[in-house]
């Protein structure tokens, strides 16, 4: 079956009014849970799984997929408005998005996120439709050594994430790596830094750490001096984008979409890298790197696009090979099985209506999302007019309940309090929380792949150089370091540093 007839089959399924309705319900629910801090698509899909029993397979999966990419849209909303990211991807959006909101540009930031997401989602869905099987095959060439090299490259390039001192950024990454080590060693089962608490065997929960260092720390900062100055974000001036804004976001959206699409295909953690990678790339390419971290619109456009493109292409390994790229995809596998379909290489041939129906529904879903979200921008921004003294207790409680609902693990909530304090101290001492999160997310992956590569090669480090993809990635990493230490660049960095003072 060629692409055209496949897609027309897909659209005939996806445009069924009943399916459109459930697609809409999915993206609406996704947007709403994405907006709620703490609670993410994983928890929502897990909770809604039983409801989908009564639906037929296409409808159920169209709806669940809608929740997932809808949540990617919604997740950026709270990151921008109240500095409360719900997932690793929106943590990056929070860096510049929240600064834009503080300057009264929340509307522009939200609109940028929606437009970038829509474009990225549509393009990535096209990639999924046109090239899914060969791309999935290609991604299988990525073994432990390749992932290790990719993460090394990501870490080195991402030092650009911070906008102050390199030393502090490095310290934050290392702290993040250390925090990432908490939990059971997956190779020997030895618990590390768990203080004998069984609830910590699984490691620190990402959402708890992110909510703490961003959201709770921000609340503490706002409570510093509230009698003297207006807290929270400034009054919103204009809702939509200026001509200048549009000119500035085109490049980042295109690059973010490309980066995200490629990284999303890699099942071993590529989607996690996408928004971080896009942010670093934009900062490197920007003529005004000093604006990053202070409300650069490129810092919202790039990562948001990358994140949504990756969300869409991470369906590729699931739908063509039946392997999950991350917990949400694992849940989708569960949903397939509950519908009596075993996900695997045969789904595309045995269930063409389902396969192409889901893909076609993604376009419809993305369209619905942008229609839904652009008007919502006005509504969300209005939410900022709620007095802060009412808003912040709600943020704290939503964060606690949302995080608790993920695993029903009370230590995750203790972690929020601890990282709220840590995050606040970091702000006081001028350290950036973003590199810390990066280290926290990538540290365990780095270790896992390094050790696995060494087990497979029986201790021979040459495996990283002998394999061509790995060698290329490591070469790029070396090049990145060389560029960073070249004198001219260093001078440029110093200037940034001086301006910061």
């Amino acid at each position, binding site marked *: 079956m060629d692409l055209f007839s496949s897609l027309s089959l897909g659209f005939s399924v996806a445009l069924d009014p009943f399916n459109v309705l459930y697609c809409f319900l999915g993206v609406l629910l996704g947007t709403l849970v994405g907006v709620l801090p703490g609670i993410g698509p994983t928890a929502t899909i897990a909770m809604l799984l039983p409801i989908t029993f009564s639906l037929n397979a296409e409808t159920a999966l169209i709806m669940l997929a809608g929740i997932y990419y809808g949540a990617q849209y919604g997740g950026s909303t709270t990151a921008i408005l109240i500095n409360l990211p719900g997932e690793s991807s929106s943590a990056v959006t929070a860096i510049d998005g929240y600064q834009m909101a503080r300057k009264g540009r929340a509307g522009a930031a939200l609109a940028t996120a929606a437009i970038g997401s829509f474009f990225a989602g549509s393009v990535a869905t096209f990639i999924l439709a046109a090239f899914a099987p060969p791309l999935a095959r290609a991604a299988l060439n990525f073994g432990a050594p390749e992932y290790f090299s990719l993460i090394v490259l990501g870490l080195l390039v991402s030092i650009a994430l911070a906008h102050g001192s390199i030393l502090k950024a490095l310290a934050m990454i290392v702290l993040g790596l250390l925090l990432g080590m908490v939990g059971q060693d997956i190779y020997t089962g030895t618990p590390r830094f768990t203080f004998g608490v069984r609830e910590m065997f699984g490691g620190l929960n990402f959402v708890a750490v992110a909510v703490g260092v961003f959201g709770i720390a921000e609340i503490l*900062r706002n409570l510093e*001096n*509230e009698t003297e100055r207006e807290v929270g974000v400034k009054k919103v001036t204009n809702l939509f984008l200026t001509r200048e804004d549009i000119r500035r976001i085109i490049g980042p959206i295109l690059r973010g979409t490309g980066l995200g699409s490629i990284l999303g295909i890699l099942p071993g953690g590529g989607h996690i890298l996408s928004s971080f990678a896009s942010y670093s790339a934009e900062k490197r390419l920007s003529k005004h790197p000093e604006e990053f971290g202070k409300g650069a619109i490129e810092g919202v456009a790039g990562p948001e696009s990358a994140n949504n493109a990756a969300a869409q292409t991470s369906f590729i390994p699931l739908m063509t090979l039946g392997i999950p790229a991350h917990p949400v995809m694992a849940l989708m596998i569960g949903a397939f099985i509950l519908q009596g379909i075993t996900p695997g290489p045969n789904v595309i041939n045995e269930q063409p209506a389902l396969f192409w129906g889901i893909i076609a529904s993604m376009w419809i879903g993305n369209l619905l999302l942008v229609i839904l979200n652009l008007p919502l921008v006005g509504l969300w921004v209005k939410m900022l007019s709620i007095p*802060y003294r009412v808003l912040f*207790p709600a943020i704290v409680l939503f964060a606690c309940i949302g995080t*608790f609902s993920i695993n029903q693990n009370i230590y995750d909530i203790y972690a929020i309090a601890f990282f709220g304090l840590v995050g606040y101290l970091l702000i006081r001492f001028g350290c950036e929380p973003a590199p810390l999160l990066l280290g926290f997310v990538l540290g365990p992956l780095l270790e896992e792949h390094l050790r696995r590569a060494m087990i497979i090669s029986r201790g021979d480090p040459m495996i990283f150089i002998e394999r061509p993809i790995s060698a290329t990635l490591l070469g790029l990493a070396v090049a990145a370091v060389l560029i960073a230490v070249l004198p001219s660049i260093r001078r440029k960095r110093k200037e940034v540093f001086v301006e910061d003072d």
Partner: protein
Amino acid sequence: MAAQGLRKGADDAAPPWPWRGFVLVLGTILFFAATVRGLGFLPTVTIATFAVAMSSTRNSVLSSLVIAIGLCVLCYLIFVVGLGMIIPLVGPWLQFGGA
């Protein structure tokens, strides 16, 4: 360096440490973790919201109470009714006549 360290804290002088925020916000999060299983969803959310709201000098006792009850209803509707979260509404510590 010192100026840079406090760059994000304030524009000119170092702001005071938010002790009240530390105690009430962080304390409440710990309280929430310690009691959500025992007291149950409704009492814990209400008490926690009240305490957090009190950490702002702009909230009076009355307005904190109003926020607490309003938010408790909202959280109940969103998480328990809307998302079907499994959690005892009133926990075992409060069930005098029960099991």
